[in-house]
Each structure stands twice: as structure tokens, then as C-alpha cells.
């Protein structure tokens, strides 16, 4: 008997927990501020309505209708589409492997926050903490100081994964999401009550309407929505496949999207209030301090935490605690997408599928706690997102809107939904989403081909950038060609009891 969510609330908390990740906290605020500020909200809302919510409705409908991990769901739609399911699963696998390392660093920094162990130069401290080497191919050995948090994170994730959907993931998200919200609430209140906060908010929200003439701002908006919602890489398909058939997917998609993007706006208010305070402290402009990603989290923010007037340890724990809970709820969803892929195609129990996924993940993730860990992670992350997820998304909407009867899915979506979605949904996916994701994929790929990535040597980029994409493609092929359990492609082979 296939597992199911205990309740719709449990599913929504898990889906929101999956969508709300590190990018919500350390990527969105900077993307918004540097792409027109308040004006960015226009393309941002437009992208939520024309891509975010439509793709969520699409994936929730596919999952609850065809009731399998991505490969099985795609295979049940059309035998020849199974490869895309495995490609999405392999993309999720790659992301799951390096995501570990970030959560390990975050856990370590919760510890450092007690004494602000980073001292006067958090940047130098972070590079020394990683034992960073000069290139991705120069591994520099395993950083032993990372081993303890590495084992702790692995043990926690394995414990949750082995417990399954209803007793493991749902329970973990019911605990983590309220904690995450409280931690961010404390940071936002602290941020807003600091001198200089308004300068930070001015920098983030002051509208520069001329920026909307620039196409890259619209691509950035679509990119932010697309990467922030955990869509197109098997997660939402897997999660919704454990829903009862009589689920209101339209409402669920709306709640997931507004909660996810509402959270990142909320976090952005906290982040830029504190950036405003830092700028005031250092007598510089907010733009000189503003940053994103790993640099913001492990270099800029520790500086801000040390310069707070009081309770520095508390706010450090709040910040890195928020990153930790956001990271764990995302990571278990990523791994569950992979587990569902194996569990539903091959004849194996849930526990065996978890083992089959966790063992290679564990071995490969050791690569990311070596001295070259962050270099490798930076390249892999750039390629698997900008080429892997983007191409999976384009192929997904093209296959469904041009080689399948999308109208059938719209009726499936509306069957148990209180608000029906009109035909605009078909055209939105077929035209708007396809064009914008296609443009995004084209620009990203062209840039990597002509300019490589960052300051890295082409050997590093070829091995860990293009090599990662090739890895995903080859393994997707291999798993597609392998024989699954009898009748896995036949939707009506599922027992009636499983569906309701």
C-alpha cells in the first residue's frame, strides 16, 4: 500500500517547506534590489501568475492523477516520456548531494554564533573554515572539522527519510516550518528596529521603472519564480503523488506559491533592514554591502551579527537556524523525489529505495567537504540550475502542451477544485511559459558556452559543469532502459483503494 499524507495541511507544509529554501533568504532580496527594486514586483507578480502557479497546478495534477514518482508519472502519460522523469530525478539527485554541504556549513555556523567565532574578519574565517583550495580539481583532502556536522546532518536526514512520507517528512515539516517562521520573525523585528533600516528598505523597494524596459529583468523574475518553487525537477510530482485523488490542486498551488513568495519578501525585509544598519555603521552606501548567496550568508551576515548592539549570539542563531530549517525541509523533499523514482518503477520497498539513494549520495557528498568543495559546488549549482532545471522545465511544458492533450489535465485539475482554471492556463503554459523558459535556457547555455563560468579554469567548468549535465543525461538513459516492475506504466493497475 503506497503511503499518503495524513492531511492536506501536512502536504501543504511539506510543499511549502520544499519551496522555501536557502534561495528565498539569500537570493531573492538581492535579485529584487538589483533588478529595478520595487519595480521588480511587476514582472515578479506576472511570472507568478503566468508560470509559477500554472506549473504548480500542472505538476500537482500530474502527480495526483498518475500517482507515481516522476519517471512513473511521465511513463503513464506516455511511454516515450519516461526519460524526462529520470532526467528530473537525476537533477534532483545532483542538487541533493551538494545541498548537504551547505547545510553542514550552516549547522557549523549555528555553533560559531554562540561566540561569534568568526572574529573581526568573517571572510578570511570562512575561507579557512572550508580549507578552500585554488581550483575545483585541486581537492585538498577532507576537511576534518566538517566531519562531525556532516555526520549529524546525514543522521538527521536518514532518520526522516526512512520514516517515509506521513511519519517522516510530514512530521519534520510540521516541526520545522513554525520554527522557521518564528526565527525569521525575530530577525525581521530586530532588523526593522535598527537605525539605518529604512535605508536598506529604500534600496530594496525604491522603484526604478526604467528597468522594466530591460528584458533581462523579466528573465530574472521568471528565473527567481522558477528556481524558487522547486518545480520541474521531480519534487512536486512526487509530493502530489501521495495526495488523495479528491484534492483541490488549484487552491493548493495558490497557497504554496503565495506562501513561498510571501516568505521570501518577508525575509528580504529582514535582510535589507540589517544591511541598512551595516551600511550606516560603516558609513557606506547599502549597494556597497548588498550581496547574495554564500557570500551574503557566511561573510556579510556574520559581520552584521557582530556589529549588532546586543544579543549578537541570539540573532546569529536565529539567522543560521532559519537557514538550517529551510535547508533541511528542502533537502528531504529533493531526496524524496529521487526515492519515489526508484520505489515506484522498481520492485523495492520504501526502505530499500531510501538506502539505494542515500548510500551513493553520502559517498558523493564527501566531495563537497574537501578543500575544493565550494569551488565544485559553485560550478555544479550554476549548471544544474541554469541548464539542468531550465531544460527540464522547457521539455516538460513542450511535451505536455504540444505532444499531449493538456485539456485533459485541465479537466483533471478542475474536477475536485473549487475554483476552476480556464483555458488561459493551456495558453499560458503553451506560449508564455515555453517562450520565457526557452529564452532563459538559451541565454544561460550560450553564456556558459562562450564565457565559461566565473573565474574558473575551463577544465574545472568542463568537468564539473558540462560533466554534471552529461552525468544526469547518461544515468537518465540507463534507468529508462532498465526493466521496471510488472505493469508500472499502467495507471489502471493501481488498486482502487490506493487512489482514495
Amino acid at each position, binding site marked *: 500500500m503506497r503511503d499518503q499524507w495524513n492531511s492536506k495541511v501536512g502536504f501543504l507544509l511539506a510543499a511549502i517547506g520544499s519551496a522555501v529554501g536557502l534561495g528565498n533568504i539569500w537570493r531573492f532580496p538581492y535579485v529584487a534590489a538589483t533588478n529595478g527594486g*520595487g*519595480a521588480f*514586483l511587476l514582472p515578479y507578480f506576472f511570472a507568478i501568475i503566468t508560470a509559477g502557479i500554472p506549473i504548480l497546478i500542472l505538476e500537482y495534477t500530474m502527480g495526483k492523477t498518475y500517482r507515481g514518482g516522476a519517471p512513473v508519472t511521465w511513463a503513464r502519460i506516455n511511454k516515450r516520456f519516461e526519460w524526462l522523469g529520470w532526467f528530473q530525478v537525476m537533477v534532483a539527485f545532483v542538487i541533493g548531494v551538494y545541498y548537504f554541504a551547505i547545510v553542514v556549513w550552516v549547522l557549523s555556523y549555528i555553533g560559531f554564533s554562540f561566540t561569534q567565532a568568526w572574529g573581526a574578519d568573517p571572510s578570511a574565517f570562512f575561507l579557512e573554515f572550508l580549507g578552500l583550495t585554488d581550483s575545483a580539481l585541486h581537492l585538498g583532502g577532507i576537511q576534518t572539522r566538517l566531519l562531525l556536522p556532516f555526520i549529524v546532518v546525514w543522521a538527521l536526514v536518514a532518520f526522516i527519510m526512512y520514516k517515509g512520507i506521513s511519519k517522516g517528512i510530514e512530521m519534520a515539516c510540521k516541526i520545522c516550518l513554525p520554527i522557521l517562521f518564528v526565527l525569521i520573525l525575530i530577525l525581521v523585528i530586530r532588523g526593522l528596529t535598527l537605525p539605518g533600516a529604512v535605508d536598506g528598505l529604500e534600496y530594496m*523597494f*525604491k522603484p526604478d521603472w526604467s528597468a522594466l524596459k530591460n528584458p533581462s529583468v523579466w528573465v530574472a523574475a521568471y528565473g527567481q519564480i522558477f528556481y524558487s518553487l522547486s518545480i520541474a525537477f521531480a519534487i512536486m510530482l512526487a509530493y502530489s503523488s501521495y495526495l488523495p485523488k479528491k484534492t*483541490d490542486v488549484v*487552491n493548493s498551488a495558490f497557497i504554496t506559491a*503565495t506562501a513561498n513568495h510571501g516568505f521570501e*519578501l518577508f525575509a528580504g525585509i529582514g535582510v535589507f533592514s540589517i544591511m541598512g544598519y551595516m551600511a550606516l555603521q560603516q558609513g557606506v552606501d547599502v549597494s556597497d554591502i548588498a550581496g547574495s548567496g554564500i557570500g551574503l550568508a557566511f561573510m556579510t551576515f556574520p559581520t552584521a551579527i557582530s556589529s549588532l548592539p546586543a544579543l549578537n549570539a541570539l540573532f546569529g542563531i536565529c539567522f543560521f537556524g532559519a537557514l538550517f530549517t529551510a535547508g533541511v525541509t528542502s533537502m528531504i523533499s529533493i531526496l524524496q523525489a529521487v526515492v519515489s523514482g526508484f520505489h515506484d518503477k522498481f520492485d523495492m520497498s520504501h526502505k530499500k529505495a531510501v538506502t539505494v539513494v542515500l548510500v551513493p549520495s553520502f559517498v558523493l557528498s564527501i566531495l563537497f567537504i574537501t578543500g575544493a568543495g565550494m569551488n565544485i559546488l559553485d560550478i555544479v549549482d550554476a549548471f544544474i540550475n541554469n541548464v539542468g532545471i531550465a531544460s527540464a522545465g522547457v521539455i516538460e511544458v513542450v511535451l505536455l502542451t504540444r505532444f499531449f492533450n493538456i485539456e485533459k489535465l485541465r479537466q483533471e485539475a478542475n474536477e475536485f477544485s473549487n475554483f476552476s482554471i480556464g483555458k488561459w492556463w493551456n495558453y499560458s503554459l503553451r506560449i508564455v511559459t515555453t517562450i520565457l523558459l526557452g529564452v532563459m535556457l538559451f541565454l544561460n547555455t550560450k553564456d556558459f558556452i562562450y564565457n565559461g563560468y566565473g573565474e574558473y579554469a575551463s577544465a574545472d567548468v568542463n568537468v564539473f559543469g558540462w560533466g554534471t549535465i552529461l552525468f544526469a543525461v547518461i544515468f537518465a538513459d540507463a534507468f529508462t532502459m532498465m526493466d521496471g516492475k510488472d505493469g508500472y506504466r499502467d495507471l489502471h493497475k493501481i488498486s482502487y483503494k490506493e487512489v482514495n
Partner: protein
Amino acid sequence: MSTGAIVMMLIGCIGLWGGCGVAIAIAMKHSKKNSSADDETEAEAVSEEKKA
């Protein structure tokens, strides 16, 4: 903070948090309606059983 920045911040917060609140309220309202509908069908089933 400039008026433009304040207005855009409010639009963002109201748009997203308001949208989320409305969607949750709708979900809760309809889940109550569905569960009371289920209770009714259950009660009917029981009464028919008694008649039979």
C-alpha cells in the same frame, strides 16, 4: 523611506500575504463543507441500513 518604496513594499506584502490568507481561508471553508457533506452521506447510509 520614499513614498514609492513604501507603496511598492505594501503592494508586495498585501499581494502575497493577502493572497495566501484568502487561499487558506477558502481551503478551510471548503474543507468544512466537504466534511459536513461526508457526515450527511454517512448519516444517510446509517439510516438506510436501519430501514433495511
